[in-house]
């Protein structure tokens, strides 16, 4: 019996390994494409030479100063959103419970739009407001959902209630503001990785370097929580403590990503369901989800840059929903097993 289980686990692990390799190859291809193609295109050998520090002046400028920061930020933000979404969906045991739907990203948006339209701030202040907004809203949801424990059901419903409030607040601010300012706020609300600077990237990278290992450490407990509170506590997991720790990690990931690139739509929501359906073993599939998130973000930024002819560049957030969602819809339409990845 245990031999059978071990064997099937081995098969599952092999399958996940294959999927990870394929996803990593796709991500690498998109990254290379984003670095090489544009108004000034490079051949691959030229690109490699430039990356290794042997490029001509203009190549250095275009690749290292313009394109590399942008791609790096897209990869990091995509990973952060995707892992955050996967954590929320697993811990709260609801496939719709991603940070964009239960108000965490919404809190960031409301704080950022408030700082732009009412306080007249911009730049770094917007990012800081967004980060704080996400944390405050998440803390509020947790406190409100606490009643001798945090049931996933209660957390999710209260989160959605808060999400509606902050969305209402954002629409109110947008409809009362001067049209030009409202449009500026709309651009931030769409989310973009253009204008990425190395300082921002370093901040995001440091956060990820702390948060992702912590997620990996706790992933065993997450597998327990996935089976429900009773089963998890029977397995010896301290349910409330584990859930709080995982939610804190998820919120921090969503907050740092939103602060850096704005509320890029739906990456957190689609990445984990896509990854789990592609892997198809019913496991957590965190690494595949992270890769899917990075692929969608970099792919969306590439498409947004080249969607319109000429130099007109669109923000990445404009196509994230249009890229990830149809693929998820296709996977749903062709799936043949119930509840896979739910």
């Amino acid at each position: 019996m245990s031999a059978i289980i071990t064997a099937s686990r081995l098969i599952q692990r092999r399958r996940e390994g294959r999927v990870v390799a394929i996803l990593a190859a796709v991500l690498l291809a998109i990254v290379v494409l984003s670095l090489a193609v544009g108004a000034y295109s490079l051949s691959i050998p030229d690109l490699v030479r430039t990356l290794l520090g042997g490029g001509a002046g203009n190549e250095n400028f275009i690749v290292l100063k313009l394109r590399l920061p942008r791609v790096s930020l897209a990869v990091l933000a995509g990973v952060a959103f995707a892992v955050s979404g996967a954590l929320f969906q697993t811990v709260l045991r609801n496939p719709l419970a991603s940070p964009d739907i239960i108000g965490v990203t919404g809190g960031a948006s409301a704080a950022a739009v408030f700082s732009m339209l009412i306080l007249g701030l911009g730049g770094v202040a917007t990012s800081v407001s967004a980060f704080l907004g996400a944390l405050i809203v998440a803390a509020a949801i947790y406190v409100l959902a606490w009643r001798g424990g945090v049931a996933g059901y209660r957390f999710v419903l209260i989160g959605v209630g808060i999400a509606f409030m902050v969305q209402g607040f954002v629409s109110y601010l947008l409809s009362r503001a001067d049209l030009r300012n409202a449009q500026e706020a709309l651009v931030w609300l769409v989310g973009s990785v253009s204008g990425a600077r190395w300082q921002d990237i370093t901040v995001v990278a440091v956060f990820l370097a702390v948060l992702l290992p912590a997620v990996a450490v706790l992933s065993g407990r997450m597998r327990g929580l996935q089976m429900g509170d009773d089963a998890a506590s029977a397995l010896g997991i301290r349910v409330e403590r584990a859930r709080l720790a995982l939610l804190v990690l998820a919120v921090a990931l969503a907050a740092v990503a939103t602060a850096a690139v704005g509320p890029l739509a739906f990456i957190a929501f689609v990445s984990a369901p896509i990854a789990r359906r592609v892997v198809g073993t019913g496991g957590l599939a965190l690494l595949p989800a992270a890769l899917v998130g990075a692929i969608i973000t970099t792919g969306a930024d590439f498409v947004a840059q080249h969607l319109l002819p000429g130099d007109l560049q669109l923000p990445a957030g404009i196509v994230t929903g249009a890229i990830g969602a149809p693929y998820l819809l296709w996977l749903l339409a062709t799936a043949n097993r119930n509840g896979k990845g739910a």
Partner: protein
Amino acid sequence: MLALSTVAARPRTRRLVGGMLAAALLLFVAIALSLAVGTRDVSLGVVVDAIFAPDLTITDHTVVRDLRVPRTVIGLLAGLALGISGALMQGITRNPLADPGLLGVNAGASLFVLVGIAFFGVTAASGYVWFAFLGAAIATVVVYAIGSLGREGATAVKLALAGTALTAAFTSLITIVLLSDGDAFDRYRFWSAGSLVARGLDAALPLLPFVITGVILAVVAGRMLNALALGDDLARGLGQNLVTARVLCAVAVVMLCGTATAIAGPIVFVGLAVPHVARWFTGPDYRWIIAFSALLGPTLLVAADVIGRVVAKPGEIEAGLVVAFLGAPVLIALVRRVKLAGL
């Protein structure tokens, strides 16, 4: 055992009927306030006169007839439609988060209204209506079609995921149009706030047959949803045809959500919260949940509209925003206080 359960059932029914009467009274109060209260306060006697013996030379009478009655009727229709369709969606997806805003219906309607504004130059409210209706219908059909493909047919999880994924795709398209067309953004931001004023009765009344059809279908679907709540396998075992139930609900949702979004904009929250409040009174029986939602939905929306008129005098805040601002704390308080019945 059987005798015991009938004995237990009788006071429950009495309690439910009592609850219905209380909800109806609440609705009546909301309607009366909506007709009487505003920038210009009108006494209830004058309101009655204005409706039954109108004298168009009296300003109060024209205010009531031309401004207050239309927005009240629109609030009633939209609230009714959203409340019932929220209950249907939560029943069919067995997900407490399902509502027109999450399952793609609002996004579909919004996208089509925006297309109407940006590409067909539609400016009149009566023009928005048909675009919104078409968008809601297409979104529901697509969600249902995608959710039901594959060997399993429509499962609750697939429907919920498909709805939200479609919302994501539509939202992207909406943003593309909004960013590229400043004029369209300007008009869209007011439509999307969800106001009961902007569209007159002329735009709403042609959609009345859709609401009536939707309500009838919902009443028929109530018993089927009770079976579905037990899970697909048990429902099938009880002889419930799952496809019939889902198609029936989908058609009802198109009719109801399409109308609501068409006449009042993409109003959030009513469809989500009302069924939860109703479930608190009724327990898990969907026939009662739908009946309570049909009374609580209009009450919530009309009351929100009145509050929006009062707090910002002499200006107004759109009912859609008030609903979200005031409704959310109520939902949160309920979720905290009560052990909510699961789905």
